[in-house]
């Protein structure tokens, strides 16, 4: 069987019914990676031994007629910012070029407990800092829908692998849109859960108050299956909180009729591509036809989101990345005479240009004399942005926006203009600042056949409603 025609659900059933085996699916994926990935560049490291051992274990269970777990035999990819025991984890950076983690990320461990087969580690922007995957220290990723274009970032490898059938699903991380924007560019589904919904234990930290882990999949149902598996409190992450995990999969079938969908004019203003706008208007029309009530809302502080984000994210990054100093793990510059010189040279050699830029910006906004004007100010504006959502969600059940102002851009198009690159996140950073869940699903194509993404934002801990809406929309599109 080929991954091309499978979803998580159908793959698991096919293995359970012994129409195929987990080993043959993994082998098919590795052959596909061998033939296509030299062009795409989605994988950094393969974990064949671990994958095939897990697959054999699943096949043994299927043979005995045991009931298989929800992700049994599903070929998965893991973004290279999540640690995997004994499998090289680089965060897309030279500074961790040979890092072999001594433990597993909780989300990865939960996937494997549910039967997932981890094929390898996905390429990404260095330390998840980027919107095009061009900041990977190893190689760029190309968009499988058009290889002259970027896959988005920072989870570019995770999105590209699903789009190119090199994995059935992947995990990504999202600090300002890094799951949703590449999902949009590659035409797949990408979900950022509520802050606290999924443990970040074992996620290499970028900005701790904004970092999230979530799935990239072919269908909304698959995203619900993965979320149900990885969600829930974890004693190893004190920021993982919240109520019991609902059955997101069962909830998909609840009706959407009567749900109120907010449309904020601030997300449809200047800079939005004409074709993306048209696709979103058609999608909103479709949601109305499904019985949803479309309500005009305002999120008045939206234009302050990107500046707020780039202060908070870089300030936290400058602190988090202080740990990479050549002492306990990773690269160390040779021939330094003193400790201080060793730190500086190690970091100079180990970090790429964008990572240095963000550490510098973060250090600057936290430094004496600038702290109040930048960092404190941004924390206050973060409150205002969050209040915007609180007020909107008193009137609506979900908010619909474009995921990105444009479809995938060309490789090299924005590399020399960091500010232009940052503006690619204009519609996604708000959800990270407020901690609310967001999902991106495909909603049509441009005249150049490039995927367009629709983003649905929900209330804190209400992934169920946005998944339900996304699922209803997806079904209606398939029926067309």
């Amino acid at each position: 069987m080929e991954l091309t025609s499978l979803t998580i659900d159908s793959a698991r059933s096919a293995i359970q019914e012994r129409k195929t085996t987990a080993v043959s699916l993994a082998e098919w994926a590795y052959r596909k990676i061998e033939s296509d990935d030299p062009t795409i560049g989605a994988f950094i490291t393969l974990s064949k031994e671990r994958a095939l051992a897990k697959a054999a274990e699943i096949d043994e269970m299927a043979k005995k007629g045991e009931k298989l777990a929800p992700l049994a035999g599903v070929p998965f990819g893991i973004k290279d910012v999540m640690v995997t025991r004994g499998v090289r984890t680089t965060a897309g950076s030279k500074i961790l070029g040979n890092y072999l983690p001594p433990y597993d990320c909780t989300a990865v461990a939960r996937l494997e407990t549910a039967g997932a087969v981890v094929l390898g580690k996905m390429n990404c922007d260095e330390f998840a800092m980027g919107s095009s995957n061009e900041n990977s220290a190893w190689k760029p990723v190309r968009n499988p829908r058009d290889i002259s274009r970027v896959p988005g970032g920072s989870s570019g490898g995770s999105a590209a692998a699903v789009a190119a059938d090199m994995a059935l699903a992947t995990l990504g991380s999202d600090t300002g849109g890094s799951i949703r924007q590449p999902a949009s560019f590659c035409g797949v589904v990408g979900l950022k859960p509520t802050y606290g919904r999924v443990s970040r234990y074992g996620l290499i930290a970028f900005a701790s108050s904004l970092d999230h882990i979530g799935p990239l999949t072919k269908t909304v149902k698959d995203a619900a299956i993965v979320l149900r598996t990885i969600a829930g409190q974890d004693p190893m992450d004190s920021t993982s909180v919240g109520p019991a995990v609902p059955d997101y999969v069962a909830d998909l079938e609840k009706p959407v009729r009567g749900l109120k969908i907010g449309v904020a004019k601030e997300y449809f203003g200047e800079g939005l591509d004409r074709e993306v706008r048209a696709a979103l208007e058609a999608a909103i029309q479709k949601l109305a036809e499904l019985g949803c009530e479309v309500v005009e809302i305002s999120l008045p502080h939206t234009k302050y989101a990107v500046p707020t984000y780039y202060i908070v994210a870089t300030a936290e990054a400058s602190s988090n990345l202080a740990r990479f100093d050549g002492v306990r793990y990773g690269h160390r510059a040779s021939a330094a005479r003193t400790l201080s010189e060793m730190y500086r040279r190690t970091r100079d050699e180990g970090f790429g240009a964008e990572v240095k830029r963000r550490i510098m910006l973060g250090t600057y906004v936290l430094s004496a004399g600038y702290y109040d004007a930048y960092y404190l100010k941004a924390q206050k504006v973060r409150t205002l942005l969050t209040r915007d959502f609180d007020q909107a969600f008193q009137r609506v059940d979900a908010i619909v926006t474009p995921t990105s102002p444009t479809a995938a851009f060309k490789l090299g198009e924005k590399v020399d203009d960091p500010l232009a690159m940052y503006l690619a996140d204009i519609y996604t950073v708000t959800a990270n600042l407020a901690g609310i869940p967001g999902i991106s699903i495909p909603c049509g194509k441009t005249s150049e056949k490039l995927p367009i993404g629709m983003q649905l934002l929900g209330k804190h801990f209400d992934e169920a409603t946005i998944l339900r809406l996304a699922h209803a929309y997806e079904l209606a599109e398939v029926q067309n």
Partner: protein
Amino acid sequence: MKVTEQDVKYAADLANLELSAEEQTRMRRDLDAILGYIDRLSELDTANVPRMAQVSHMNASSQSHTGDADGSREDIHEGLRKSLPHSVALQNAPDSDGIFFKVPKVIER
């Protein structure tokens, strides 16, 4: 330009980054452009707005019994959690003597 050469050197020093002369020039230009854009925040009056450092405190009402508002957990009564054995904790170290991490001289004489 708003960002001075001095600012760049100062921040690089705080961040333990060694930037070449070329990198410093580029950094100054980039930081200046980004901070210029960020300056739009000063349009907003935030005198009476509380700061927000973290999302989770807002979800305090939905906390489970295992933690309080910031998600901290109960002490583990049976003692310290198992930590990594020395050999594993040191396996990624660029230099060690089997017990400690080794680093170059800390104080220059």
